[in-house]
């Protein structure tokens, strides 16, 4: 994404492209762990959906169906809060991948 020069910016830090944070793929922040959804254990309590700070819990037809890895930062809150007897979200190891054009 081309970044503006200081002359091209709107004054006063105003962002006229409200809602553009959708372009910010926070999933690139994950650093070694990701949540894994285990459908058969899920009791559809929606705690994960409620607690997720990045709205990265996928819901379809009013049911939790998985994780949106474009935005999941791997913080682990969903797995921590999951109350089902057998956890329906667990953290697993993940190889770190850099986003396109990004250097570590």
């Amino acid at each position, binding site marked *: 994404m081309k970044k503006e020069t*200081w002359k091209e910016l709107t004054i006063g830090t105003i*962002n006229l492209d409200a809602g553009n944070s959708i372009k910010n793929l926070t999933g690139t922040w994950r650093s070694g762990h990701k949540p894994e959804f285990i459908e058969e254990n899920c009791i559809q309590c929606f705690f994960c959906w409620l607690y997720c700070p990045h709205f990265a819990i996928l819901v379809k037809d009013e049911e939790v169906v998985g994780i949106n890895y474009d935005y999941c930062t791997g913080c682990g809150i969903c797995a921590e809060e999951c109350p089902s007897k057998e956890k329906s979200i667990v953290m697993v190891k993940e190889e770190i991948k850099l986003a396109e054009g990004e250097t570590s």
Partner: protein
Amino acid sequence: MSVLKTLNGNQTIAEAVRQVDPDVLAAYPITPSTAIVETIAQFKADGLISGEFVCPESEHSAMSVCIGASSAGGRVMTATASQGLALMWEMLYIAAGLRLPIVAAIVNRSLSAPINIHGDHSDTMGARDTGWIQIYSENCQEAYDNFIQAFRIAEHLDVRTPVLVGLDGFIISHSLEVVHVEDDKKIKEFVGEYQQVYPLLDTTRKMTVGPIDFTDYYFEHKRNQIEGIENAPSIIEKVGKEYGESFGRTYSFFEEYRMDDAEVCIVVMSSAAGTCKDAIDELRDEGKKVGLLKPRIFRPFPYEKIAEALKDMKAVAVLDRSSSPGAFGAPLFTEIRNSLYDYDNRPKVVNYVYGLGGRDIMVEHFKEVAGKLEKIAETGKVEEIYGYLNLRE
């Protein structure tokens, strides 16, 4: 028609506020600026102003209200002093960073500790890097004139930067003077209609104000902000000239007093400049070639024009009504000495801190400074680069 009224500094600011009638006035009373807020509250109660008057629980909140109201698209003002300005500190940067043309009357007062309610410039000098334009006033008339002009400067589309107008605590804020109060209608015409820039209350436009910037945008936004205050000099000059055309009192970046053939010069801002003029008159009667330069605009600092005015002096004394502990001289001194650096035959420049906590500065003290300048001019030698005036040693 202009009317002559007997008013103190706080009342002149309140009169200006009544005439401009901003959309929102948010302020918390603090000595010595209390009477500004009190008088505005009275105007509101008497139906003399239509703007919304908000008295929040602190100065931090007052500036926050100003920021919200200005972002919403209103013409906004506040008034405070000393600890009040200090409490606004983090919000001052936000007002400037968001390029909000808020206007503030600051009744200059010392900062604690020790607690003291009298006049010095510690408060506004502490805010000198916040990004606000700073204008200083010698007397009640200048406080009135500067405050009116502040709206035009702050709101200019090339500037869009908050402006504070300083007037010395008690010496100006509480001293009665005869002031030309201009016609209400003419002042309204001069200030003009408020022009909104991306107001938040425009619900037809989706936007975000003040989002977080990471390492990839913060620097560009700060540079973008700096452009506003750097655009200010030509606007300050234009507004000062137009004010003169409308009301007969023209303003620029600084005032030169008996500088024509001066060989040495005293630089001093605000109310002390008035006393200094008397000292200069007496010294001139004695045949001494001494002049006064009174800065009016401190931010943006008019370094080129001030250097041009001072470059041919033999010696210059810069008098600061604030200290900068541990620094090489006080704020005005460092600016002026720095401004002259590129001139090969630059004058010797010395610094005196005076008047902290409202300590008097009298004609005799300016004469003492002039005597030291004469000695420096004669010998080319500086014994002390910075010192203190009227202090028990």
